């Protein structure tokens, strides 16, 4: 025990990101306005470096034949789960950066700080994914959150962006206050800040004893903070506003990376920390999930703003994922639900970023491009983008053989496997419901005529790359999901599980 050289290695991805973030801040000062493209390029390189770092850690783990190594005095752990999420964050970030370059130019806010904040936010996410100590988790969460507040408000001259940032900040700070309150109670109940310690104490002392009501308050306040971050009803309301007002590229980034980080943390906290309280949080999650699916799907139905619509859609997806959590923790034999969440987050990253990429691409000259009508006749203006958008929409709706189907598939699989038939039925019916508003987008693109005088949409190279990346990933995962499923199995350490081992063959 103690600080050793491996800790440097384990921190390598985060360190590299930080270094590049600082580097961007410095380089930006020296850049001519027309050379600003260096910033995103640097950021991408930073992400790639960080990915190399993750890979190095992964190889080291493989070499040590170890499922995971705790580090930094056991406040973090580098296991397959963390590595999976690291890759996920980095992939999302690359696409988001590629989406941003041209967009910021148009918005005339092409500053290095944007990329630096993005990289720092990813550093925070990584802390959330790998932290096993509530202090580190909290700080990571705040690092990510505060970076995101700024990024949401990055279009300083745009009132909607201001407003979104302000709302997001006020609610975010409020929720993190509540979250911190819950953490303080958890600490008070267990005397430790490490998740393992908390789990142990909860099992041994708290749950059986008179402290249970306090523990309930601790749990619920903690859950509030977590559910707020993943935007589940009734803690979701920041999401539509923030998504709508934020720069579109950031909306995409938030909807996938930030959400994935929140999920990583939620899973970590609930499963390794608060598992003793599952009898309490599972029914709560069922309620939240039903409320989320219902509210979000209904609210999305009549939206006319694409970003807002997708915001509600992303809330609805959270509802499905929560079902996976409920089922995934029902028995130890059925990890399908967790698997479902992980693969859901993976495919969601690509399809949702792709969708936001297309919306971002619509921003040109003085068209904001986030109204549904702006998509009208997109097919004739940008056929490739329109078809890919269709792919993303159908994937979001969960139509096989597109990637989005697999997330839902495993969720429903786990629900059936754990005898939650009614929940499964509800979930699938809501997913049909959801198709309606995705089809609205498809309708606009393919079946409505473009407004007069609309010519071909100029799409930058980096944007094309981003959308193509997302599109290829969506199709590839959809058609040949096997390696990805195995990746998730690997990340959950399921390959050793005899039940799963038979499957993997």
């Amino acid at each position, binding site marked *: *025990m*103690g*600080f050793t050289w491996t*800790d440097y290695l384990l*921190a390598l991805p*985060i360190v590299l990101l*930080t270094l590049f973030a600082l580097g961007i*801040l410095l380089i930006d000062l020296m850049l001519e306005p027309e050379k600003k493209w260096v910033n995103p390029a640097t950021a991408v390189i930073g992400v790639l470096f960080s990915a190399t770092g993750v890979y190095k850690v992964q190889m080291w783990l493989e070499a040590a034949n170890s499922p995971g190594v705790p580090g*930094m*005095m*056991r*406040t*973090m752990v580098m296991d397959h789960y963390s590595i999976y999420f690291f890759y996920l964050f980095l992939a999302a970030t690359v696409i988001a950066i590629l989406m941003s370059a041209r967009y910021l130019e148009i918005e005339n806010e092409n*500053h290095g*700080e944007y990329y*630096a*904040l993005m990289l*720092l936010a990813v*550093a*925070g996410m990584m*802390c959330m994914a790998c932290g096993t*100590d509530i*202090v*580190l988790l909290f*700080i*990571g969460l*705040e*690092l990510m959150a*505060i*970076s995101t*507040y*700024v990024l949401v*408000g*990055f279009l*300083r001259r745009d009132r909607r962006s201001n407003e979104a*940032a302000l709302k997001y900040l006020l609610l975010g700070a409020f929720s993190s206050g509540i979250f911190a309150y819950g953490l303080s109670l958890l600490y*008070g109940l267990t005397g430790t*800040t*490490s998740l393992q310690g908390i789990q142990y104490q909860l099992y041994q002392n708290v749950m059986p004893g*008179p*402290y249970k*009501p*306090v523990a*309930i*308050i601790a749990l619920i306040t903690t859950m509030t903070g977590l559910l707020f971050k993943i935007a589940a009803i009734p803690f979701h309301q920041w999401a539509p506003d923030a998504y709508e007002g934020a720069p579109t590229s950031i909306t995409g980034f938030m909807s996938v990376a930030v959400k994935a980080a929140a999920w990583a943390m939620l899973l970590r906290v609930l499963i390794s920390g608060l598992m003793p309280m599952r009898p309490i949080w599972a029914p709560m999650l069922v309620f939240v999930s039903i409320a989320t699916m219902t509210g979000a799907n209904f609210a999305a139905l009549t939206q006319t703003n694409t970003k807002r619509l997708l915001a509600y859609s992303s809330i609805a997806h959270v509802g499905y994922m929560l079902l996976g959590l409920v089922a995934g923790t029902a028995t130890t034999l059925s990890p399908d639900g967790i698997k479902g969440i992980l693969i859901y987050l993976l495919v969601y990253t690509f399809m949702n970023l792709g969708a936001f990429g297309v919306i971002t691409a619509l921003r040109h000259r003085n068209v904001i491009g986030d109204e549904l009508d702006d998509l009208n006749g997109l097919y004739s203006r940008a056929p490739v983008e329109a078809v890919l958008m269709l792919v993303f929409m159908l994937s979001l709706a969960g139509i096989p053989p597109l990637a989005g189907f697999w997330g839902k598939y495993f969720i429903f699989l786990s629900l059936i496997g754990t005898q939650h038939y009614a929940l499964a039925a509800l979930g699938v019916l809501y997913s049909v419901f959801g198709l309606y508003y995705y089809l609205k987008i498809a309708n606009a693109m393919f079946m409505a005529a473009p407004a007069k005088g609309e010519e071909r949409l100029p799409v930058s190279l980096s944007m094309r790359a981003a959308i193509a990346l997302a599109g290829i990933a969506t199709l590839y995962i959809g058609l040949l999901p096997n390696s990805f499923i195995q990746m998730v199995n690997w990340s959950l350490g399921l390959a050793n599980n005899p039940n799963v081992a038979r499957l993997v063959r």
Partner: protein
Amino acid sequence: MNPVATPFFFYLLSGTMIIGGILVITRKNAVHSAMALITALLAQAGLYLMLYAPFVAGVQIILYAGGIMVLFLFVIMLINLERTLKERQFNQQWLVGIVAAAALGGLFIAVYTKGRNLFPASEHLTYVESQNTQGVANLLFDPHVGMYMFAFEIASLLLLVAIIGAVVMAKKRI
């Protein structure tokens, strides 16, 4: 060192804190609120001392009262106070808000006080002033027990982000 935790000081300080808190959320003038908040924070620092946490108390006074609140005051000065003063201070849902918040606080307090014997106070804690600061520092920096070292580093990033954020947001031209 034990007698510091007398009920008198506790109720005095907590009374100050509560009154300060109430003033924060009721004052029309944001400057007054800020002043009330500073008062409350200082009272809280006193409570920290009563809890044998001099380092935190110091941080509270220096960083909170001294740093953050000054920031608040600057911003209050920056923005137009005149107009705000003449307007309603509470929104239309204030009653519902109070009820909801009161319900929440009430629930909390009810739960805490229902189990009277929860968290019994431990007597006779030997306390050396230097030990506190050193203990905090050990947890933060010691290569053997400094488990919050990494979190501390991340906290530095947090502050960096705060700086960048504040600059980006507040500066007219970057």
